[in-house]
């Protein structure tokens, strides 16, 4: 059997999404607070702390610069944690996937359900930070509302990348490599905390292929009340990563679980 044949998608992913939503709903309040606390500390701590030491960054106060980065960063983290640790628990530890596959749900439906769920949760995190930023007056215009579909798209991208790791992981320890070798460097190279233009040319070239930097390039203008330049290019890159990573994750999951 060809494990890497194209995904076959159907609406049967929805009960899987619903299952995860039902679990989340039970712990929604602590979960939202947890999702908010970490990026808020980053945003406010760095924004006001370092911000007071800095002149304007890119023509705006540092905290206003940082807000868009924090939304993308928070979205990425939320999608990544859900697609790595939570999905791995369901696949490997609790055998929830095994139970679902005994029902008339295919692995394609199941992995799509996990992807959609992780993206939904990530979008919620991103939206929560957006709300806080707006409340603090860090958002210039209603154009920033376009970052809601953006965080869902970015959620899909980072969830799909995370699912690739999950399908490969022998144990939770494996995920440390993903963070130290990919997520952390990407965060530093993608213009979340400082403009990419500050980096040496080689790093800037690397930055241009990282999905997080495309998310930031869309979110930042939106926050500052501008229409992003080359918006479709950035959207296409994020979507391209999402599709390719989902396909790969599904192929790896088929090879792992259906052999």
């Amino acid at each position, binding site marked *: *059997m060809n494990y890497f044949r194209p995904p076959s998608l159907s609406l*049967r992913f929805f*009960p*899987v999404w*619903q*299952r995860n939503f*039902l*679990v989340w709903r*039970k712990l929604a309040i602590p979960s939202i607070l947890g999702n908010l606390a970490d990026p808020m500390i980053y945003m406010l701590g760095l924004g006001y702390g370092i911000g007071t030491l800095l002149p304007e960054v890119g023509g705006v106060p540092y905290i206003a610069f940082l807000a868009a980065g924090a939304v993308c960063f928070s979205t990425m983290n939320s999608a990544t944690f859900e697609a790595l640790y939570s999905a791995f628990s369901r696949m490997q530890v*609790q*055998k*929830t996937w*095994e*139970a*679902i*596959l*005994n*029902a*008339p*749900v*295919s692995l394609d439906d199941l992995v799509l359900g996990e992807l959609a769920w992780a993206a939904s949760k990530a979008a919620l995190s991103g939206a929560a930070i957006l709300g806080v930023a707006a409340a603090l007056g860090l958002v210039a215009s209603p154009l920033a509302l376009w970052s809601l579909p953006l965080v869902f798209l970015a959620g899909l991208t980072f969830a799909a990348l995370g699912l690739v790791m999950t399908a490969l992981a022998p144990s939770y320890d494996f995920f440390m490599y993903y963070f130290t070798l990919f997520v952390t460097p990407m965060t530093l190279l993608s213009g979340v905390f400082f403009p990419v233009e500050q980096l040496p040319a080689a790093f800037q070239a690397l930055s241009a292929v990282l999905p997080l930097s495309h998310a930031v390039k869309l979110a930042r203008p939106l926050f500052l009340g501008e229409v992003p330049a080359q918006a479709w290019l950035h959207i296409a890159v994020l979507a391209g990563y999402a599709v390719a990573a989902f396909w790969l994750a599904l192929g790896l999951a088929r090879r792992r679980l*259906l*052999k």
Partner: protein
Amino acid sequence: MDTLSVEGLRKSYGATAVLQGLTFALRPGECYGLLGPNGAGKTTTLRCALGLTQPDAGTIRLSGLPVPERAREARLRVGIVPQMDNLDPDFTAAENLLVYGRYFGMKERDMRERIPRLLEFAGLAGRADAKINTLSGGMKRRLTLARALVNDPDLLFLDEPTTGLDPQARHLIWERLKQLLAQGKTVLLTTHFMDEAERLCHRLGIMDRGRFIAEGSPREVIAAHIEPEVVEVYGEPGGAPAGPPQGGAAKDMEQAQPANEHHPLPREGGRGDGSLMSAADWAKAEAAQFATRVEVTGETAFCYLTESRPLLRHLAGRQGLRYLHRPANLEDVFLKLTGRDLRD
């Protein structure tokens, strides 16, 4: 009603041939047992039948549909109790059923109506809101059975449903399976408990290393593969009397025909009064003249025979040996066919 048929199933993992040409079919309404030691390929057979793994060769039809091509649809009419419990630990008992019903496209309202009845059937009526980790092993198994029934399946697959359960819990599961059979459901059961198979299965196949080595009704399999009676002979430990005699040796000889094969009435007798002889030594020296076949494991000699009277008479006069006379059962067949070596 379409059930499951499997023909020429082959599957290898690397160099290990796990299934080597397996053929069988379930008749509607029957309980069919797949028996075999650990590693025989029982679970792999079920996984192939459900389309969860691709066999290297063979044809499978489940619920009238070809597998694996249309396995997902075929599973709509099947209920599954997996070997390892995989209830959802994040949910209560009732939520487990609700969420599982959704995977079958069941409507929320219908599910809410069905759940109390399913819990009742599983003997969990008061436990709707219990967390999974507060349930005992037997309760989890029963909840898993209830979950397998959410879609009111025609066909049930149960992979070692009673492994690890205490006798009470086992009997309750058996009772429920009998009820389901009485409702007309078809059951495919894997087990390595022979008493379970003898009790529940209309037909069974004993498999080893991915092949059937016997198939038929429990009675047919016993009749075809083994002598009807067994006398187990043990050495008297330390030569000391082991409690009051149960039925004299003479009485035993009169009733040399063991009782109904499904209700064995073991008899003990032939207690010695001091002189020591190991059952193994006795078997080596003397058993062959009485029994068709003798197997010795450790300190027990298993004598398989058609006519037990001469052996019982002989044993009654022996000192230092105890024995148990019983009808041959499926376990004897199983051990004869698959050997007494450990399988891990």
